[in-house]
């Protein structure tokens, strides 16, 4: 009896001594779960910075190539360079073709071509299939992204925008500047009607309405 009691006491002592360690482990796991989403978001921002830096680098290289072509008038080199560039584009389908910038909310984000499999709301701000590219006269460049708290919520601060705020799009080594002219909400039905001035080149941003699960907000910008 006495031996059994001793064993039981030792066991309970052992369990008690393990409790702080288990508690500490749970605390660490809890903290990790709690900070995983902000960390993912920060990691996304760091990668985004690098992608934009590479995009800028490529634009600079393209500009340099154009200047060289004009100066040298060497058509053979130009065609080789173009083929090589096209091949590179096919290989690296995550490379950006342009960049959306809204200084007021410190948004700088690249976008890929419509054909890329990364032109998806789960990876990037997405170009709608119905959209025209920014260089099309009187076209409507439509971009969509999530809002909310997730790390892919690239349009999470769009609700802070007001009429008159400015945005710019870099595409094909050109920058297109726009001004916000209209904001309106629509119910989430899977489609969205865009009301814009057809005599102006526009940029349309679509995202979920802030703190509202049933509506989406459409921001119409017109070229300055």
């Amino acid at each position, binding site marked *: 009896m006495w031996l059994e009691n001793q064993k039981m006491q030792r066991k309970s002592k052992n369990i008690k001594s393990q409790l702080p360690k288990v508690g500490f482990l749970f605390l660490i796991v809890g903290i990790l779960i709690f900070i995983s989403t902000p960390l993912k978001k920060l990691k996304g*921002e*760091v990668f985004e910075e*690098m992608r934009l830096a*590479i995009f800028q*680098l490529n634009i600079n290289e393209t500009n340099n190539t154009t200047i060289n072509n004009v100066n040298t008038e060497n058509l053979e080199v130009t065609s080789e360079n173009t083929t090589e560039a096209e091949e590179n584009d096919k290989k690296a389908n995550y490379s950006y073709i342009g960049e959306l910038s809204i200084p007021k909310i410190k948004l700088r984000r690249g976008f890929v071509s419509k054909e890329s499999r990364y032109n998806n709301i789960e990876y990037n701000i997405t170009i709608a299939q119905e959209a025209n590219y920014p260089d099309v006269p009187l076209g409507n460049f439509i971009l969509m992204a999530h809002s909310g708290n997730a790390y892919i919520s690239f349009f999470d601060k769009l609700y802070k925008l007001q009429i008159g705020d400015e945005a710019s799009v870099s595409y094909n080594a050109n920058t297109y500047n726009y001004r916000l002219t209209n904001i309106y909400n629509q119910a989430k039905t899977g489609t969205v009607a865009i009301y814009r001035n057809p005599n102006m080149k526009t940029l349309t941003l679509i995202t979920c309405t802030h703190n509202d699960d049933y509506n989406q907000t459409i921001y119409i910008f017109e070229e300055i």
Partner: protein
Amino acid sequence: MDLSILEQLMTFITLPFQSFLTIEILLIFIILLIFLLYNEKRKNNKVKIAIIALIIFFFSLLVFYFFDDIVTVLSEIIKTIMRCFYFPNIVFYNLTAIISLVILIYTILKNNLTKLNKIITYILTLIHLYLFTNFISLAITNNTSLTDIANIYQHDNMFIIVLFSQIIFIILILYKVIYHFCYIRHSKLKNTK
């Protein structure tokens, strides 16, 4: 920025008296210091706890008033660490290689290290240095300028090499820190016995 040493010193001395807030902050820190020094004589536990509570209260107030700024600063710190990990610049990457090399040479020369410790260190440092050498040779073959980091990381293979070598380097450093921590603890226990 273009001040002389004397001017820099004068600015530093007059800095705490520029506004009421700075004087207040200075006074709080002086009082804390006096309390701590006085308590070193008295060794009163209540005073110790009170001072710790006061410090926590003071910094909680700072966090309360400047929460957004603190979050921004913390985010920037974490982003800088992430940048150093995922996209280190060439200076930082060279530094890791030098540290690895120093650890390798130290391990070769040191005789009183255990065999297992030596083997693990050799493996980790040599993998790291091998990846570093590979990185340099790739930069030469790709004719990549190492001064611009975007230029380096536009090549997927260079990004992968750097990423894996950073992982190896972190494992190496963690291993060394944990080993030394355990070693010191172990030797302390031995001494007390």
